[in-house]
Every structure is written in structure tokens, then in C-alpha cells.
């Protein structure tokens, strides 16, 4: 494990200030430790050997007070910096995945784990690992410098054993790094799996698989335990070796100076100083070892965050959108892992036209709309808007001219009103849009009307009702281009007829593209654009 990923400095500015603070505080901490050791050793020696009275306590009190202030500052700095770094990385991560668009394939559950639990593991890294790492360099350094004139042999013992520790740690680190990453991957996948399973719980129940799933969860947890324990055994083994090296060295030093005292080669004050300081010299390294595992997890998460941050965003044009015909020129859209293209289309849609996009399921109707919106890019061919390549148009400005009812609209867990007006709008406008979409009657019948809270994915409403909420959204947005993906899906004939009336009114003065299956809906259009379907090549 690299002790410090340089990208952490680049992406999270708070890291830099923290490093400076940690080094400064570490130096003071080390100096105070040494002073304390000397004062204590002198005091004990005075009382024990020279029959002195109660020793001078003032300097000791001062040192203790100063140490607690340093401890306070260190802890506050660590926690605050960790919080700042986490926040910075989290915001960047979320903004970046949002920028990657709806067709990016990292599962939502994994991103959520990364943003939450994953980054939280940085706490350990910042509060327990980094400062100790700094101390593990500073304390032994200062200590050895101070110890050298006092006792050569103790100095040598420590100087020889100390470097063994980092060497050994590096070895263990190489061994466990991959394991830690794997373990974090497992965790991310598991979280996504849970999300999937919870969302599909009714389906599992319907097929009588929920009991089996509980068994699977038990089994996965067992596997997770075994894999984690395997990683931990090695990680803890490294702590064990550090611990052994450290404690044994301290024991050796203690015994060594004890024997030299007996032979009168050393005075008690020096011996006590060494005894107090020796464990402190090893302590930071021991703590580094003890906190190695937790910190490695944080770094593994951070690395995944960086990997996502380094995924380039889709190129965005900056041109202003133009009015005019929508032209699909030899457009072909492909998805990875599919032999057939999802869409092949050459067509021109004039402003003000209502065009029904038809064809068998899977022929690419929804894909055509997605390509027009700029969510997917054609593998070949171009889409132009008023003669300008869509790829060169700024996506936000372009999408602001479009109202879209997707095949499966996303409803948020919020009020009906929030769902119709995603960015807010005044009450009358919302009600009017709902009325046009044939939704106001059922909304009025809800217990809290427009303020009724919906659950996830609009639960609490029937599929047809959800469909009409999404339609209301489109009616509310006064956009020149309207894309409707099966707007009458899940609606009974009467309701569908009402909705189609509304679409007819809405279409006035706008360009409307409707992916349609129902004959009545197709009849509503000025003309039908039939997609051949990918099984039979277009134009055949």
C-alpha cells in the first residue's frame, strides 16, 4: 500500500493542510514526550537514590497540559480533515457519475456504497494511520538523536530493530493490498446485490424463492466471513510481527540496560529515560500496523473513486440549439455485447409534424429517442437539428427544448406535486398540466391531493396513474419538441382516449415524436415512421 496516494492531494485539497498540521503537531508531540521522559526519570531517581523530597511538579504539569492540548488538536485536525476530504471526494464522485449519463454501467448500489461506507473508511486512514506514520518517522528520529549521547547500546538496539518494521510492513502490504481491494469489491457488489434483492422481494416471494434467498444471504455472509478472515489473518499477522518486534525490542532494551546498571555502566536516570522512551519509539509503528487494515480499506475505496473520476466524461458540444428539421442520417446505434445494432434509421422530421414511430418490440424506437436526447451516440451516421450536428450542441440547452415521457418514467419518493414539477412550479400550472394529462381526477381523490406522498418508484399509484403523472410532467414543460414513448401504455381505452385528446391539443405548434403500438395512437399522428427492426435490415 502506498502510504499516500498523490491523487489524494490533487482531488482533495484539505489533505495538504492536514499533512502540514500533522507533521507540525507530530514534532511537538515527540519533543514533549522526550521532555516528559527526562523529567520523570530525574524525579524518580532523585527520590529513590538521592533521598530528595516531593519533586518539582510544575514543569511536569506544564508538559502534561501541553501534551493534552496537542492530542486535542491532532484529533480535531484529523477528524475535520477526514470530513472535508470525504465531502470533497463525495461531491466530485456524484457530480461525475451524474455527468457520465444514464447509460453508464456502474450499478447504483455500488456507487452508493462507495460514496457512503467506502469513503467513511478514510476516517481511520486520516485519524489513525497518517499521523502515526508521521510520528513513526519523527519520534524515533528525535529520540535516537537524544538517546545517542546518553546510551549508545540502547540507541543501537533501537536503531537496528526499527528499520526492520517498515521493511516487514512493506512485505505484508504487498501481500494484503490485493486482498483488501478484492474484499472491498465484494462489499460493493454485495450492497448492490442487497439493493437488487430488496427491490425484487415481491417477485422472490411470488416464486417462493425468498426462503432460499435467505439461505443464499446466509451463505454469502459465511463466504464473506471466510474471505475477510483470510485477509484479516494476514493483516493481523503483520500486526503480530510488529507487536512482537516492538515489544521484544523493548524487553531486550529493558533487560539490557538492567544488566548494564547492575555492572554500574549506566546511571539510573538514563536507564529510566530509555525505559520510558523505548516503547514510545515503537508505538507509532505498532499503531500503524494495528490500523493498517482499516486504512487499507479506505484507500481501496478511494482508488475506486479515482477510477471513476478518471473515466472521461462524454464530449459535450457548446453550440446553441437551433430550430428546424430533425434529421437522422444513416444513423446506427450499437450497444456493447449485442450483435445486431439497436437502431438503424434514416429519416427527416419537419418542425410541427406529429410522427408515430412504429415497429415490433425491440426495433429501436426508444433507442431513437435516446439518441435524439443525446443519451447514446450513434456508432455511425449523424443526427442533425436544423442542420447542426446534435453532438456539437450543448446538451443542457438542447434538452431544455424537449419534453419526454419515457417508457418507464422515474417517479421520485416525494409528493405528487414534486413529481409533476420536478423543479417546482406554481400550483395552478401543476393542476392544469395534471388536468391535461387526465390525472387531476384521481389526484384530487388521493387523501392529501397534490401533497400525497408517494413511495419509491411511485408506489401507491397504479401503473396507469404513474404514466399520467409522467405525462403531466411533459405538459407542464412548454417545450417545442415532445418525445412520447408509448404514452398510453397501461391505460384503459377510455382513459387512453382522453390522453390522446390531450396529446392532440399539446401537439399544436410543436414537433411530436411518438413511439406507438396502439392503432388509435398511430392514427393520431400525421404520418407513421416504421422501423424495420434489427432482425430484418432496414431498406430490405
Amino acid at each position: 500500500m502506498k502510504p499516500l496516494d498523490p491523487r489524494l492531494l490533487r482531488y482533495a485539497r484539505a489533505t495538504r493542510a492536514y499533512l502540514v498540521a500533522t507533521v507540525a503537531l507530530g514534532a511537538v508531540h515527540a519533543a514533549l514526550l522526550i521532555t516528559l521522559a527526562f523529567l520523570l526519570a530525574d524525579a524518580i531517581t532523585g527520590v529513590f537514590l538521592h533521598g530528595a523530597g516531593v519533586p518539582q511538579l510544575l514543569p511536569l504539569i506544564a508538559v502534561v497540559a501541553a501534551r493534552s492540548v496537542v492530542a486535542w488538536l491532532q484529533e480535531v485536525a484529523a477528524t475535520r480533515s477526514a470530513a472535508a476530504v470525504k465531502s470533497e471526494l463525495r461531491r466530485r464522485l456524484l457530480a461525475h457519475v451524474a455527468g457520465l449519463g444514464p447509460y453508464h454501467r456502474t450499478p447504483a448500489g455500488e456507487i452508493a456504497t462507495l460514496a457512503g461506507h467506502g469513503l467513511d473508511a478514510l476516517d481511520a486512514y486520516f485519524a489513525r494511520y497518517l499521523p502515526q506514520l508521521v510520528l513513526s518517522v519523527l519520534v524515533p528520529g528525535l529520540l535516537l538523536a537524544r538517546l545517542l549521547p546518553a546510551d549508545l547500546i540502547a540507541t543501537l538496539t533501537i536503531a537496528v530493530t526499527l528499520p526492520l518494521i517498515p521493511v516487514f510492513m512493506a512485505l505484508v502490504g504487498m501481500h494484503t493490498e490485493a486482498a483488501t481491494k478484492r474484499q472491498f469489491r465484494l462489499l460493493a457488489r454485495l450492497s448492490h446485490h442487497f439493493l437488487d434483492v430488496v427491490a425484487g422481494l415481491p417477485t422472490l416471494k411470488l416464486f417462493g424463492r425468498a426462503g432460499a434467498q435467505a439461505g443464499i444471504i446466509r451463505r454469502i455472509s459465511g463466504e464473506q466471513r471466510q474471505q475477510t478472515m483470510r485477509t484479516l489473518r494476514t493483516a493481523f499477522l503483520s500486526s503480530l510481527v510488529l507487536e512482537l518486534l516492538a515489544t521484544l525490542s523493548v524487553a531486550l532494551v529493558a533487560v539490557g540496560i538492567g544488566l548494564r546498571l547492575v555492572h554500574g555502566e549506566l546511571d539510573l536516570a538514563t536507564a529510566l529515560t530509555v525505559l520510558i522512551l523505548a516503547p514510545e519509539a515503537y508505538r507509532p509503528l505498532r499503531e500503524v500496523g494495528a490500523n493498517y487494515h482499516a486504512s487499507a480499506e479506505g484507500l481501496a475505496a478511494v482508488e475506486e473513486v479515482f477510477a471513476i473520476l478518471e473515466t472521461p466524461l462524454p464530449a459535450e458540444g457548446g453550440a446553441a440549439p437551433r430550430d428546424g428539421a430533425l434529421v437522422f442520417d444513416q444513423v446506427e446505434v450499437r450497444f456493447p455485447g449485442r450483435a445486431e445494432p439497436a437502431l438503424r434509421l434514416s429519416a427527416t422530421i419537419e418542425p410541427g409534424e406529429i410522427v408515430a414511430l412504429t415497429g415490433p418490440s425491440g426495433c429501436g424506437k426508444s433507442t431513437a429517442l435516446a439518441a435524439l436526447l443525446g443519451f447514446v451516440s450513434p456508432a455511425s451516421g449523424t443526427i442533425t437539428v436544423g442542420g447542426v450536428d446534435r453532438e456539437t450542441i450543448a446538451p443542457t440547452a438542447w434538452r431544455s427544448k424537449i419534453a419526454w415521457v419515457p417508457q418507464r418514467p422515474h417517479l421520485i419518493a416525494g409528493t405528487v406535486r414534486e413529481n409533476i414539477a420536478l423543479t417546482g412550479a406554481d400550483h395552478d400550472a401543476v393542476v392544469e398540466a395534471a388536468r391535461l394529462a387526465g390525472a387531476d381526477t384521481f389526484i384530487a381523490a388521493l387523501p392529501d391531493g397534490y401533497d400525497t406522498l408517494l413511495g419509491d418508484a411511485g408506489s401507491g399509484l397504479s401503473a396507469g396513474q404513474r404514466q399520467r403523472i409522467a405525462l403531466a410532467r411533459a405538459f407542464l414543460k412548454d417545450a417545442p419538441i415532445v418525445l412520447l414513448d408509448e404514452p398510453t401504455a397501461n391505460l384503459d381505452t377510455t382513459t387512453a382516449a382522453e390522453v390522446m385528446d390531450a396529446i392532440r391539443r399539446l401537439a399544436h405548434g410543436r414537433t411530436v415524436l411518438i413511439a406507438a403500438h396502439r392503432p388509435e395512437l398511430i392514427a393520431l399522428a400525421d404520418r407513421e415512421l416504421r422501423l424495420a427492426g434489427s432482425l430484418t435490415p432496414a431498406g430490405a
Partner: protein
Amino acid sequence: MTVLRAYPLIKPAAGRLALAVLAGAGAAGAAVALTAVSAWLISRAALHPPVLHLMVAIVAVRAFGLSRGVLRYLERLIGHDAAFRILGDVRARLFTRLERLAPAGLADFRRADLAQRLAADVDAVLDLVTRVALPYAVAAVVGLAAVLVVGALVPVAGLTLAVALLVVAIGVPLLQRAAARRADGRLAPLRGELTTGVVDLLHGLADFSVYGAQQSRLSRLDDVDARMTQASRRSANVAGLSAAVTVLSTGVCVLVGLAAGAVAVRSGALPGELLALVVLTPMAVFEIAGPLPMAAQTYVSARASMRRLAELWDAPSPLSSLGSSPATPVFSDIPEIRVENVTAGWVPGRTAVSGVSLTLPPGGRVALVGPSGSGKSTVAALLVRFLDPRAGRVTLDGTDLRSIVPERVREVVGYLPEDAYLFDTTIGDNLRIARPDATGAALEQALASARLLDWVRTLPDGLDTLVGEHGMALSGGQRRRLALARILLGDARVLILDEPTEHLDDETAGELTRDLLAAAGHRSVLLITHREADLDGLDVVRL
């Protein structure tokens, strides 16, 4: 209270936990003893005794040096193992609980939040064991021993040590609570909120970006983030305070030990060679007790997680209980379903359907029609016992559904809901949920019946093609047909099909419906549809 409820969960791992505490206490004891004995050894050595007199101490120092690391290793290993065992058990139990509640009993919860509870909140068990319970238990054992030893030498120093330990172990946590106002307790729900927000953002990304809401959704998340950061900052001050008090406590013990020890040495109550021991032992003890304030902080956040789990245990079940003796009736090959004057609803105070009656005779074909929102799906939910009627009754071969184990009902009655869920796995695995041991031929047969086989054959990976989250890598009609194929693969003898041909072109839809009704053979079918053309030759029930 929480502890009592947790006991049955801990019981199977109790032996391991005890072992871990034992090893931990041994390790901590060795660490303290190492300091104490070396302090004495060195003081004694300063009096130049024969080396032989020091041999026992020398051997002891080396032994402590060795055993500490080994015992600590054992403690961590055994402790983590025990914790993971408990954790796996809790997770499986929690899932079973969720399963009981779904879907009606979980209406008030967000899915992502539930998943978060199942993942991260359950993980808090690990913290609770390894970072709270074990450190406290170990510190209690070793702290007590140290207090007794030091107290026997210099009573004042022992007393001070005892008080300082109590301050660190109990006082500081109490102080934390007062100062942080449970900042750490707030983090668990905030993390749930974050997960929910992230999942919502990503699943709704397309809609948000078209309706210009992406930025506002992101800033909502930034707001959650800001609250999390604020909570962390608050706990920063607390953590700082704890660290300072711990260092201060150590210092006070050392200084009191020094002063009181010096007085005792002068009065002859304490041999001079033990002074170093009295002064230095507290330092080693606080290395053990030092992390306790941190443990207390961990406890607060872990407890918040446990509370979130308890909420699920306490959520009311949507089904009326089965009474003392649930019937496991033997049904005829194709049982008859009757809905008798039923009233039902999902949330209190809102009726979704009232006064519905229908009969689905063995092998019958009945169409259920009604305007959008008239409660067709609610009727279906009643038939698979996702919901129990508020009035009236539903019977299967004459037995009230409420007296039949829900699982048994679902073996007989299969249901294709209008928003049938596809799991983020392959086409084949999605199908096999209906029948885990289905052969390749059976899968293909089901796909063919749903008119999806031709398409699957064009896929390079065939049945191993991934369908994406919520089936997003399939077209709307493909999703629908895959779900349909899945229900056909199962062996339910009564099928409830809610708009099975939605998202298909008119012609295909008509043909598919005819095929389906024919392929169902002697099974009964309740067809929910809005296509008037489908109704020919079916008994029609209107809502």
C-alpha cells in the same frame, strides 16, 4: 432492552467471545506487566544486586514481551470471527423479516434505505463486538488488576488510577453525549438518506436531465453531505476532547503517583525501588484504556444502526396472523378461487377496492377489466396473499386464504404483476427464479411461448446476456416478455396475468394472448387487460 433482545443472537458465539476477552485480557495484562516489571527491574538493578537475583524478572520481562503480541493476535482473530458469525446470522434473520413484510408492510420504507440497513447497519454488529464490547471488557479486567496492585503499594495512587479510569471509560463518553448531542447517532440515518439519494439520482438520471432537475437533485445530495460533514465536525470536537482528557488523566495518574510515591518512600511506606513501578504503570494502563472514549463513540453510532434494525422488527405485519393451526389443505389439481364481496386497501383509511366478487373455476378463463386505478392489481395481490381483505373473504377450494400459509398459496397461484421485476443478472438466471432446476430446453420452451426466443438467439451470449439494473438493457416489450416467460416456466396452476402484452405492437399482442390462453391448457387464467379484443370468449368481470 436492546441488550436483552440481542442476547439470542449473541448466544451461539458466546464461547468465542469469552475466549477473545480472555486472550485480550492476557495481552493487555502482559503489556502492563511488561512495563511494571521492567520498571522494578531497572530500579532494582540500580542497587547493584547479584544478577542471579534479577533472573526471574528478566525471564518474566521476555515472556511478557513475547506473549503480548501472540495473545493480541488471538484476541483479534477470535473476536472478528465471532462478530462475523453473529453478523451473518443477524443479516439472514433481518432478510427473513423483510420478506415477511414485503411488499405491503414496507410501503413506508425506501428500498435503498432498506438495502442500506441490510448491508451497512448490520455491519455495525462487527463494530459493536470488536470495537466496543471487547475493548471495554479487556480494559475492565486489566484496569481492575492494575488498580489493585498500585493501590496495594500506594493507596492514593491506586485511588487516583481508579478514578481516572472511570473518567475515561464512563465520564468522557457521558461528556461526549452532552457535547455532541448524538452527532454520531445521526450519522446512520444520514447514511441511509445518502444511499437513497444516490440510488434515486442514478436511476432517475435520464428524467432529471431532461427536466432540468439534475442540478437540484445533486444539490439535495450536497445538502445531505453537508449535514454529514457537520455531524463529523461536531464529533471532531468530541474526539479532540476525549483525546485530551485521556492524556490528561494519564498525566494526573503519573504525577499523583510520583508525588504520593515520593511521600511514601520518604516515610518508608514504599521501598524506593517500587517508585518507578507506581509512576510508570499508569502509562501502560492508559494505553489499554485510551481507546475507550473512541469505543463509546462507536457505540453511539452502532446503537443508531441497531435502532434502525429494530424498526424493521417492530414494523407491523400486513397479514392477519394465521392463528394457532394454519391449514395445509390438500387442493384439487386446479383449485377454484372465489372472491366474495371483498373490501381491501394498502394504507389505513384508503380503500382500494370494495365489494368485489369473482369466481375463477378450475381451468377457467376470466378477464378482469376496469379503468386505470380501479384496483385490478389490488385484487391480484389479494389472491396471492400479499394483502388480506378488510371485509369479505377469498377462498381457495373453499378454504379461507387467511388460514393458509402464504407460501402455500403462492405455490398454487402465480402472478405476473404489471411492473414485474427483473434482477440485475442474466436472462437465464432471471428465468430460473421460477424453477431453479429448469433444463435449457425448458427455458427455451418458456421463451418461445412468450415469443422471445428468436430474439435471444440473436444475442452473442444468448441466455447468459445480462439484463442490466431493472432490466434496463432490454426494450420495454422484451422486459415484459421475459417476465412472462418466467411465470410460464413456473408451475403455478392458477395464473394471474396483469397486462401480459403491454409494450407490444397490436398484432403481436393479439396473437400472443391467443397463444397464451391456449398454452395455459388446463390451468386457470385470470387475465387483466385493457385490450377489448382480448375479451372475446372470456368471462368478463368489470371493476
